[in-house]
């Protein structure tokens, strides 16, 4: 008996810590190696090594092509413009809805987060239907009405792409700044007033500088997202030969028909895209370098609101019009075109039919795509949530040697464009390492997990930081083993964060296009891919109908999420 307990204790001592911690740490490292390190290494290897020898040839070859250079330039131009306008718009509306006496603030604030949920490629599709240079509904109407010989507006341009991306990316800045404004200590502004500063001076010298970290964080999100974005430039740019690096990579892959040469070219282009993103990150850091301020308190306070006086109603109308243009118009357009008998017919009730819906809901390919997306989104959600929480626990609580590496590895895929990740996954898991997942759902799942791991890792980390170590220790002194204290105390406490982490993954995964468009096989189309292909095949009404289904699915799921998370006991 005594010997038995000695041995058990010795085992515990030899690892310095309890065995479970070691298992979790090892698991975290192995998983990140498989999910993140291998695909990324495969890209680097294929871009720089030819027949086992190191070479820059492939990169140089790409850099000397004018198509590559113009794609790079387009990527940078679009990314910069989207970030600039998105940030201005986000800050303006955050201030308007957070700090002024504009009517209906609460409702407006939740309405302004809708564009965040709206799949950008569906928005691009809707605007293409309206403002396509040749056949857009709005363009044709204007040409007829005003007797114009050519289309007055053309969405299939760089500026069109920038417009659509800004519409759906400005909420990144908007949401960050609104919450920073909410949590800011109002006495900071009040003391500036006491010191003699006018309202405008306070905004300029106190409020804005204090929310700079929030603005900068949001702008960074916009920049990374826009540089890596595939959907909008693919839908609006292809017809006019406007390519960005992500769409160029897609074009190279699809033109080569999956040949290895094509994938190697894509790998070289991927490296260039990563370099662009990395440079953008560096530049961003230089331009907006700012330390974190500690003035923003966690508690919600009642800030003084600014009286807009005469501008109150005009600004209110401006906000409504903005919402109408970026949310309602595309939404209505998608729904209406989904009902029309044939693309191009006027949008009047006589031309409406439900045939598109019956057709897509009876085609096995389309139904399969919905099923595939559901399977992928749910499994990616569950798996990433579990792994993210595991890694967060290791990073926050166990803190083994190499914690920093672990942390970087798990958030790395977030700043790596989805297109690049997809190329890495193709290179790693289509046979070259002995495992071939190509043309199966598994390969898409692996890519999704890598892509979304950081989401759940971040939410779980934040939640774990709130769990004071003494809560687990109290359970230990009550006689609970390490495993029991995890199960009974820590997990229940972070469960709400895990659930919201799941939906943070589930929702974007449902509408994912960027990686799946490179990874799908004949039987593994996802919802986004199917909409994209229907549209590509010229079946606009069916694509719009399926788009409507996707939007309804997203709205319904979102409503369910809100209902679930609303009535949870605050911890």
């Amino acid at each position: 008996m005594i010997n038995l307990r000695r041995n058990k204790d010795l085992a515990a001592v030899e690892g310095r810590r309890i065995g479970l911690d070691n298992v979790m740490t090892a698991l975290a490292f192995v998983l990140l190696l498989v999910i993140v390190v291998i695909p990324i290494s495969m890209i680097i290897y294929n871009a720089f090594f030819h027949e086992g020898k190191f070479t820059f040839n492939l990169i140089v070859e790409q850099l000397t092509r004018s198509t590559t250079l113009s794609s790079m330039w387009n990527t940078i131009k679009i990314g910069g413009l989207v970030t600039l306008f998105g940030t201005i718009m986000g800050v303006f509306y955050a201030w308007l809805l957070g700090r002024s006496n504009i009517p209906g603030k609460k409702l407006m604030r939740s309405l302004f987060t809708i564009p965040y949920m709206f799949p950008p490629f569906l928005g691009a599709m809707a605007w293409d239907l309206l403002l396509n240079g040749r056949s857009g509904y709005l363009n044709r109407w204007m040409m007829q009405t005003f007797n114009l010989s050519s289309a007055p507006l053309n969405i299939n341009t760089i500026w069109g792409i920038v417009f659509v991306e800004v519409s759906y990316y400005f909420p990144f800045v908007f949401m960050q700044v609104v919450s920073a404004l909410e949590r800011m200590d109002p006495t900071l502004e009040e003391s500036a007033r006491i010191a003699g500063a006018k309202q405008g001076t306070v905004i300029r010298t106190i409020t804005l500088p204090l929310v700079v970290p929030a603005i900068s964080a949001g702008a960074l999100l916009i920049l990374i997202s826009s540089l890596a974005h595939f959907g909008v430039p693919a839908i609006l740019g292809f017809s006019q030969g406007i390519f960005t690096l992500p769409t160029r990579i897609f074009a190279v892959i699809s033109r080569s028909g999956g040949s290895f040469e094509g994938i190697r070219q894509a790998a070289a282009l991927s490296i260039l895209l990563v370099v662009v993103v990395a440079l953008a990150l560096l530049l961003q850091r230089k331009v907006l370098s700012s330390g974190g301020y500690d003035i923003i308190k966690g508690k919600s306070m009642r800030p003084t609101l600014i009286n807009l006086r005469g501008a109150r109603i005009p600004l209110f109308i401006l906000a409504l019009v903005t919402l109408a243009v970026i949310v309602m118009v595309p939404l209505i357009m998608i729904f209406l075109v989904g009902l029309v008998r044939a693309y191009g017919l006027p949008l009047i009730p006589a031309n409406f039919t439900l045939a598109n819906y019956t057709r897509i809901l009876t085609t096995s390919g389309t139904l399969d795509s919905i099923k595939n997306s559901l399977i992928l989104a749910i499994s990616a959600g569950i798996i990433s949530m579990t792994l993210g929480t595991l890694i967060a626990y290791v990073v926050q609580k166990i803190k083994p040697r190499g914690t920093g590496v672990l942390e970087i590895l798990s958030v790395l895929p977030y700043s790596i464009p989805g297109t690049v990740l997809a190329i890495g996954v193709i290179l790693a898991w289509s046979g070259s390492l002995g495992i071939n997942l190509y043309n199966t759902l598994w390969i898409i799942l692996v890519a999704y997990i890598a892509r979304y791991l950081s989401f759940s890792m971040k939410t779980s980390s934040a939640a774990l930081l709130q769990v004071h170590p003494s809560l687990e220790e109290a359970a230990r002194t009550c006689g609970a083993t390490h495993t029991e204290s995890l199960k009974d105390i820590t997990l229940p406490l972070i469960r709400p964060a895990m659930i919201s982490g799941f939906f943070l993954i589930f929702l974007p995964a449902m509408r994912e296009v960027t990686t799946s468009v490179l990874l799908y096989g004949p039987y593994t189309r996802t919802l986004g891919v199917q909409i994209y292909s229907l549209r590509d095949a010229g079946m606009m009404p069916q694509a719009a109908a399926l788009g409507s289904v996707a939007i309804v699915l997203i709205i319904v799921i979102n409503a369910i999420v809100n209902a679930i998370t609303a009535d949870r006991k605050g911890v």
Partner: protein
Amino acid sequence: MAQVQVQLTNVTKRFVTKTLGDIVAVDDFNFEVYEGECFSILGPSGCGKTTALRMIAGFEDLTEGEIHLGGRPVSSSRKNLYVPPEERDLGMVFQAFAVWPHKNVFENVAYPLRIKKVQRAEIERRVKEALHHTSLTGLEKTYPSDLSGGQQQRIALARSIVTNPKVMLLDEPLSNLDPHLRETMRFELKELQSKFGFTIIFVTHDQSEAMAISDRMLVADMGKIMQIDTPENLYNRPINRFVHSFLGESTFLNVVIKDGKVYAKGDMEHPLDLEAPPNAESEMIMATRPNAIELTADKGYQTHVQTRIFLTDRTEYVVPIGNQTLKVQTPHRITFAQGESCSVRFVEPMWYPVEDPEAEKERQRRQLI
């Protein structure tokens, strides 16, 4: 003598830090705590008291030495033995209460019993009893977030007594409460102890709290044990200047000893009305309490009142002595006006050697960690 419940033998804990190098958090701790005793570990922050408690609880392993609980070795560097906290059968109350926010009062208190797979009816009975002893009856279904700090602390207490542990570890359990509540809880804690007969090890930096509650106290500084004794002895016979200044108010006087007479530094003409201690060095520090100095009209060292402050239950005077000043506290009935001449006499002062200036530096370094 009662049975030994907790025993630390040569316990040492070393940490390696990146910025400040090696640190010996606990340096060769040796002490025993007896059954039914209330034993406090007292010291400023960085003195190693919390580390010592966490080693007893099993949250930290020790670098060297051995810890016994109830005669059973639980941590030992020599035998390479380490018993995890859940197998040490302790009760523990944390500074931040550590009440689980997702469990109601009943579930919080029932948890240790559920872990031990106690029968349902027995759990009901014992939780009810624990709640009764901590005046929480009726709040079973309430969640901690709806309760006050004092009530949350009672949940933590109820949770730790429900298994009837032999040893109770308290890590500054009262410091998050307001002063009035603190006194009440202190009293309730002693009541519980006399009812259940457990041994308490109490960690605090609050000397008055420790004195009020403890049978014996350990004063530590910079990882070393300074003195272990009863509160009375610690207050009246502090072993060094640190312990003297840590417990109660102190006044220190630098003195010079010459020909068996004691002079305040700066005045070698008028000796103090005191006998030099045996084996005195030529320069020493004389330590006393402000309320242990007699202020009279004639007997003793002649000086005058420099400042007079009228406080609620005493009068405080500052009097110059040599090149130093001295703080004296007297009952209100003894009154001297500002500027009035007076004499001071010392009652049983303590004598300490002059302190090494390096020690103060080391103390500050440790505070950074």
